[in-house]
């Protein structure tokens, strides 16, 4: 418990710094919009930490400004995935039987496609745009959560206190939300943070293929 407190403090401080930086970046790095042809294509230095691009703009500042949108999008996508994954994984793990078998087939189908290519196809079908991006990445990423949650639920539901809760007459929904899901959260939190980074990479990858942003937004990437 003592160690937990340290971790929580460290995490809050870190997140606060990151958030501040990301939110304040357009103001902090307003100079990185300016063209400066004299200093184009510089190597990293003290004035340009990541160097500069072919129009002389500071890449460090531009990365942060670009990260702003990507981070926000990644958060939204991961929250959607978490909800969808938690509900589907918990239901299939808890009820088992036919529902579980059907779910496994869906899961295998989704997982058998490389997620980036699957999202690319979806975006190509639906047309580029931020909402399409959210839909496309959510459709491919929820499986990660669902898989973890399902396996946790399967092992948890045999525990005595879960069986005991059922025995005192608790409904399935009650058992799932009151007893099972709080116990599943523990391994989910690290996965969630990892997946945000993963999604930021996916968004920039898709952004590279000009499938995501309109012209105005693309400028910032």
């Amino acid at each position, binding site marked *: 418990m003592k160690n937990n407190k340290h971790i929580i403090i460290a995490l809050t401080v870190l997140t606060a710094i990151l958030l501040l930086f990301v939110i304040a970046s357009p103001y902090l790095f307003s100079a990185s919009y300016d063209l400066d042809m004299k200093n184009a294509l510089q190597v990293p230095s003290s004035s340009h930490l990541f160097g500069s691009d072919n129009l002389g703009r500071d890449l460090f500042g531009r990365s942060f400004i670009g990260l702003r949108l990507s981070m926000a999008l990644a958060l939204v996508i991961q929250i959607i995935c978490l909800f969808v994954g938690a509900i589907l994984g918990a239901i299939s793990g808890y009820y088992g039987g036919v529902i579980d078998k059907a779910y496994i087939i869906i899961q295998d189908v989704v997982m058998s496609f490389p997620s980036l290519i699957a999202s690319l196809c979806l975006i190509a079908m639906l047309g580029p745009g931020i909402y399409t991006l959210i839909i496309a990445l959510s459709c491919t990423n929820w499986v990660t959560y669902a898989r973890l949650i399902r396996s946790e639920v399967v092992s948890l539901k045999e525990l*005595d*206190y879960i069986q*005991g*809760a*059922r*025995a*005192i007459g*608790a409904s399935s929904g009650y058992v799932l939300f009151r007893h099972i899901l709080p116990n599943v959260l523990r391994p989910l939190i690290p996965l969630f943070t990892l997946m945000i980074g993963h999604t930021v990479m996916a968004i920039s990858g898709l952004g590279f293929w000009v499938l995501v942003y309109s012209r105005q937004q693309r400028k910032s990437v």
Partner: protein
Amino acid sequence: MFEIRNLSKIYNSGVIHKASLKAVDDVTFSVDRGETVGIIGESGCGKTSLAKMILKLLKSSSGSMYLNGEDVSSIRGEKLKSYRRKVQIIFQNPESSINPHMKIYNCIAEVLRINKLASRKSEDEKALINQLISMVGLQQEHLNRYSWELSGGQVQRVALARVLALKPELLVADEPTSMLDVSVQAQVLTLLRSMQREQGFAMLFISHDLDVVRIMCDRVIVMFMGKIVESGTIDQVFSHPCHTYTKSLLEEYECLRS
């Protein structure tokens, strides 16, 4: 009062090499009001599967169950809920029988809330919980703790308090003291006995400890490989065992006694 007829549970496994395991095989017995029936047998003989089927936590493969003459083999919904109020269970392992993320107060309150015996956070609820907790010999200070802050015997008392809140007609005790020390076992068993005397519920006492069965039960059923191989009153079975398994069980037991 409670009766089981030809109950079986078969686990199927494998897709290509199909194998089926008969965990419980054609079990028939009955329990009368206020009576304690012991079930003994080695680990893996289907005792726990049987308990779970009685609680309707596990679907039976075939056979039927009757409570007060009513067929309860395939009840659902409200009927199932009222059945579960009448039939309750205490588990073996104190480490896992209470949710570690919930305070003891909430653990007991949960039972009352789900069965609508008291409204949430009312004075009624508090009074009822205090009454239950003192009945099983715990203090109010325990209510604000978590299960892992209590000893094994105390957790079993909490489990008993949860069960007693529903005033069950049949209590299934699945090796309730096999993880406890001798002196704590004595405390829990005497508590169980006095509660039974007070509330008059019938008890199905599952154990592998012959000493405990001998002192707690009126009748005993011996299970071996999913089947009932012998049943009768304590005296009958302990003094005149018929089946070879019972004989060897008693032989080892007598050997340890002397």
